[in-house]
């Protein structure tokens, strides 16, 4: 594009001012990238949640346990295809609270209901052959440098063993790949419920929550009600929700992250709009004779309109690209610190959104000066 060098040169006509404006755009878009990555991590669970999977947990508190015997009863509810269960193990690893989820599950049942967790047949066979075996998400294995055959000791905080020991040692038998949730699911450790139930000091025959696969997502409401009705007025009443609603409720515990992020970004965007708008209109005012010359030389009104608009777009997009790159690098650099929170990357969606906002910024900021430039009369412009 032969006009590029002209547009580029015009943009950096006042180097200091342009660089300062560019820096603030860069910072704004870096903030955008970082905050959206956080936002996405918190809502990622909800996005990847299955609408035809329900979660049944204790009605009054998600830490109350439910009888494992409920499984057969839930299976008998019309519309239910399969039921599996899991529990919260918690625990610490190397003297720090585990930065990953640890669940005891029944391998076949759990994997059947969660097909997004992909385990090779060999791994599954090895797991079923090893009572103290565990499978871990690929990301977790990589982060912890765990290999098949490693023994991983976890310190229990809720679940001591019968002999009073707090140390549970698991054999890593393999990894699983989560096809859906890059942010969180890859970071779980799953071990066998039969081992858990037999070895734990108390709580035998109880579990944390049921995962219920249903025939048709449109019946989620009625199936959920039917399940909860089964256990109404029992010692362990239940609450059944779609996984999506459950995940949203979970994220809401941290406050409405999405709302806070939008508010901050809205304010930043507005500030940048005013700042960049000011830069562009100032730049235009200084340049009126030059625009007059371009027209004198034969540049049409429309060409001048494009030159000014493209300059503003270039500024916004340049700032956005650099800012988003910085966000990508920043998250990459802090990855080991952040994955515990489910923040692993600035996703493509965030980058695309960022670029969209950059174009919007460029157009909004460039529109008025471009119009002004287009309407400029040569004789007046040359006199300025």
């Amino acid at each position, binding site marked *: 594009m*032969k*006009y590029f*060098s*002209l547009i580029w*040169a*015009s943009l*950096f*006509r006042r180097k200091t001012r342009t660089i300062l404006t560019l820096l603030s755009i860069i910072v704004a878009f870096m903030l955008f990238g970082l905050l959206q990555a956080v936002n996405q991590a918190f809502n990622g669970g909800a996005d990847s949640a299955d609408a035809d999977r329900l979660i049944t947990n204790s009605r009054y508190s998600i830490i109350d346990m439910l009888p494992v015997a409920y499984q057969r009863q839930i299976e008998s509810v019309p519309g239910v295809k399969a039921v599996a269960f899991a529990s919260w193990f918690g625990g610490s690893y190397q003297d720090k609270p585990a930065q990953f989820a640890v669940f005891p599950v029944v391998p076949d049942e759990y994997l059947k209901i969660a097909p997004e967790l992909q385990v090779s047949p060999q791994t599954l066979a090895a797991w079923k052959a090893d009572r103290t075996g565990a499978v871990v998400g690929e990301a977790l294995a990589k982060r912890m440098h765990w290999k098949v055959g490693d023994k991983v000791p976890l310190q229990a905080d809720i679940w001591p063993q019968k002999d009073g020991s707090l140390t549970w040692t698991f054999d890593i038998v393999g990894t699983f790949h989560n096809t859906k949730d890059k942010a969180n699911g890859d970071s779980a450790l799953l071990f066998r419920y039969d081992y858990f139930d037999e070895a734990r000091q108390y709580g035998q025959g109880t579990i944390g929550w049921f995962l219920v696969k249903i025939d048709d997502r449109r019946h989620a409401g009625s199936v959920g009600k039917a399940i909860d009705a089964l256990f109404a007025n029992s010692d362990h009443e239940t609450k059944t929700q779609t996984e999506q609603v459950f995940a949203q409720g979970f994220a809401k515990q941290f406050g409405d992250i999405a709302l806070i992020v939008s508010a901050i970004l809205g304010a930043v965007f507005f500030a940048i709009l005013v700042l960049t708008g000011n830069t562009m209109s100032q730049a235009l005012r200084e340049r009126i*004779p*030059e625009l*007059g*010359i*371009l*027209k*004198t*030389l*034969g*540049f*049409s*009104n429309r060409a001048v309109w494009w030159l000014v608009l493209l300059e503003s777009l270039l500024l916004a997009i340049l700032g956005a690209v650099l800012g988003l790159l910085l966000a990508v690098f920043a998250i990459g650099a802090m990855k080991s610190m952040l994955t515990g929170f489910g923040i692993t990357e600035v996703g493509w969606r965030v980058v695309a959104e960022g670029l969209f906002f950059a174009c919007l910024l460029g157009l909004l900021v460039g529109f008025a000066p471009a119009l002004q430039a287009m309407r400029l*009369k*040569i*004789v007046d412009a*040359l006199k300025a």
Partner: protein
Amino acid sequence: MDALVSLVSIRNLVKTYQRGPEKIEVLHGIDLDIPRGDFVCLMGPSGSGKTTLLNLIGGLDSPTSGQIDFDGKRIDQMSSSKLTQWRANHIGFIFQSYNLLPMLSALKNVELPLLLTKLTAAQRRHNAEIALQLVGLKDRIKHKPSELSGGQQQRVAIARAIVSDPQLLVCDEPTGDLDRKSADEILSLLTQLNQEHGKSIIMVTHDPKAAEYAKRIVRLDKGTLVAASA
């Protein structure tokens, strides 16, 4: 003079400016012919309408009434976009304050009018270099305007004016900001362009010495041509 041999032929040209509610007639019915190959000097007191007349001849503005023929074509009735194209093809402009783009090198400034043509980047550069060579600035092509003297900047402006090979050069006080020596160099250059390259020139100046370089002088006073001298 016959309109057929004239490059520019002006008949009963009137220009009125609107300033607020007031209308001010600046040119009151000008008749003027500029033959091909002419080098005409336009003189007159400040505010007499010289720039206004030049702008009309160069197609930077349109007259209120009257007729301007350029090379047998009426330009007073052209649409603004037609006029823009026409200007790019036929007129080279040279101003008192050079009007170079400060962020571009001499070479890029001279290339500007060629961006509007179909020439390739290499051809544009080649033509711009030739124009700069012609004005004696081959060794300054990478310099920004701020790194050049006034006389050198005006020579870059002349190179820009001739790079697309126009028939007429329209010069509004081209030596107004220059010292005597630089002014003489610029005027010699214009004379050379007129005599060796066949460019027709109309030039406004206040400087009687500058006027001596022209083939003839026309005088404007309060919007009317008063006398012509050969």
